[in-house]
């Protein structure tokens, strides 16, 4: 296949700008206004780059060499070589990274406004989290995949520990201890794949597996599949590791959780597609992925039903809805993959809406426990409207975006002859409504204590109001015109199903 260089500037910029911003923001000690200006400008630049960037490849070590007499060893054939370390920016990467940049812009704006102390390192961690998620999304070789996953897990721990509080630090310590197993497992998987195929590049590895006869070495492939799936589970917070991940989601600040859940959804999509492309033809590989996804959905939603704190409920709902994303991917059909990717986009958006509402509940000085609160609807009616809209979107009610992706997922499950999976997806969306509405009733609608009753209304800060309005607008637009997002996703899904060696 002939590949041409069409993209020489945007992929390096998407990696370099977050690093530079993190360094600069770290150096601006205690200058809140400067940090705010720099970080917002940088996030806006990232959003513009991700929107206007052309599609194409970025190869490392592709530059011409210089000889002693001053001439270049330039040769047009250099660009026809397939180099191993490779990034790719395509339609799927464009929509995912654009959504993440949009969220980063507002999250940075909110956090620089609401935090009081020196928050330079915190913003730096936020940008580095963005960097790791973008790298995982664009990468097409196992080596960079491993490094980006490792960096991402350390950054999650850093971002959670920076939120302060004993629970947050405990969650960070547990999560980092576990990265020992996951990271070593990913390194072993990488070494085994390198040993079998001889390539770190995913495209070349898939071609090598297809061309060469590996019938005697299926055991090695299965072991590397298992280790790679372990890191998938760890980075995305699927079933056996979900207690650690829900601890992480719950104990960070809600606006930091927006970035954390975006990162883990993108990681799930990227590593899931890699697993499907590389190991999708192995018998029982997709079944293993599917069973993990179903287990995640079920346990997440059941645990969300019995929580008594809004933050806990949201944490377990995020876990459960990551199961929805991976069900679509692990079905492995065209419609399933489209549904999974679309669910990832939608999920990131409506969960951000709910998380920002949760942040506002904390900001107004009410606890998020559903036992000792109530009566917030009288004092913050606008927030109540937003949180109810977010609930409707999350539980898949027609005019919102959650409905469209869940419909596609249910159709995909029925097409595959798995009506049970369709039933589980339906029940998850219904139970999402129950779990969220318990919290909303207790916090917002129930008459509160007399001590908490006041006359004056709470006012939403301007940035937050803009963010909420924008998120609601996106959920409505994507719910009414799903083609806007599906146009980006169909090409990638077709490639994964029919030509899996193409990134």
């Amino acid at each position, binding site marked *: 296949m002939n590949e041409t260089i069409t993209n020489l500037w945007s992929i390096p910029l998407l990696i370099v700008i977050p690093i530079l911003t993190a360094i600069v923001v770290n150096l601006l000690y205690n200058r809140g206004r400067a940090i705010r200006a720099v970080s917002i400008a940088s996030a806006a630049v990232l959003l513009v780059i991700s929107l206007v960037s052309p599609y194409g490849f970025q190869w490392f070590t592709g530059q011409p060499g210089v000889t002693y007499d001053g001439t270049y060893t330039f040769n047009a054939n250099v660009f026809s070589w397939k180099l191993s370390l490779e990034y790719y920016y395509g339609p799927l990467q464009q929509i995912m990274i654009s959504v993440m940049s949009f969220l980063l812009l507002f999250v940075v704006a909110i956090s620089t406004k609401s935090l009081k102390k020196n928050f330079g390192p915190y913003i730096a961690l936020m940008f580095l989290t963005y960097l790791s998620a973008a790298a995982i999304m664009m990468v097409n070789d196992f080596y960079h995949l491993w490094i980006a996953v490792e960096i991402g897990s350390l950054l999650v721990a*850093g971002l959670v*520990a920076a939120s302060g509080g004993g629970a947050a630090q405990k969650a*960070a*310590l547990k999560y980092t201890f576990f990265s020992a197993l996951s990271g070593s497992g990913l390194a072993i998987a990488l070494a085994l794949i390198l040993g079998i195929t001889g390539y770190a590049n995913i495209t070349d590895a898939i071609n090598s597996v297809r061309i060469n006869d590996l019938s005697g070495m299926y055991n090695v492939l299965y072991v590397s599949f298992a280790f790679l799936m372990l890191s998938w589970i760890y980075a995305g917070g699927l079933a056996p590791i979900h207690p650690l991940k829900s601890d992480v989601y719950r104990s960070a600040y809600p606006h930091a959780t927006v970035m954390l859940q975006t990162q883990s959804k993108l990681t799930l999509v990227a590593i899931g597609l890699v697993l499907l492309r590389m190991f999708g033809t192995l018998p029982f590989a997709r079944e293993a992925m599917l069973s993990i996804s179903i287990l995640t959905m079920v346990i997440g939603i059941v645990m969300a039903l019995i929580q008594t704190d809004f933050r806990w409920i949201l944490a377990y709902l995020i876990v459960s809805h990551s199961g929805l994303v991976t069900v679509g991917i692990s079905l492995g059909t065209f419609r399933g993959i489209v549904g999974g990717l679309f669910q990832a986009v939608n999920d990131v958006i409506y969960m951000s809406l709910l998380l920002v509402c949760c942040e506002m509940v904390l900001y107004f000085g009410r606890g998020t426990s559903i036992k000792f609160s109530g009566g917030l609807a009288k004092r913050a009616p606008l927030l109540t409207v937003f949180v109810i809209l977010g609930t409707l979107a999350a539980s898949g009610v027609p005019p919102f975006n959650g409905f469209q992706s869940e419909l596609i997922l249910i159709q995909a499950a029925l097409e595959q002859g798995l009506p049970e999976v369709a039933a589980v997806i339906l029940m998850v969306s219904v139970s999402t409504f129950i779990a969220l509405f318990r919290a909303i009733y207790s916090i917002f609608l129930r008459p509160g204590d007399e001590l908490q009753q006041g006359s004056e209304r709470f006012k939403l800060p301007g940035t937050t109001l803009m963010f909420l309005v924008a998120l609601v607008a996106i959920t409505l637009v994507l719910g009414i015109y799903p083609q806007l997002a599906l146009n980006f996703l169909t090409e990638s899904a077709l490639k994964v199903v029919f030509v899996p060696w193409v990134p």
Partner: protein
Amino acid sequence: MIELTLQTLSFLAAALLVIIGMAGMLYLDNLIKKLIAFTLLSDGVNLALVSLGYVQGGIVPILEPGASLSDFPNEAALIFGPGIVLTNIVIGVSTTAILAALIVILYKRYGTLKASKVLKGEHE
């Protein structure tokens, strides 16, 4: 009967290191001990990856002046393992640093290094 070459022995040592590290992370109650067990675990993985590339009676994969080019591919040790291990060592150091910092912070907050007190589950 497997011949006890250096490669087999170091695979064995790597497996023992991984098992010792995992057992230490599971059963030891002290957070610093858990940290040391973590470094042992990553050492074991590194050793396994390095001994994957070992060639019996081979040479270091560096092309010295005067070496014969035709024998080099047969004799040189494979380098994919070491390429990964170099990164893994660096990642291990940074993870150790973050873990140590978190342990110090948690010690200041709770006054103990016992994992059974610090790392209790949230729902118990």
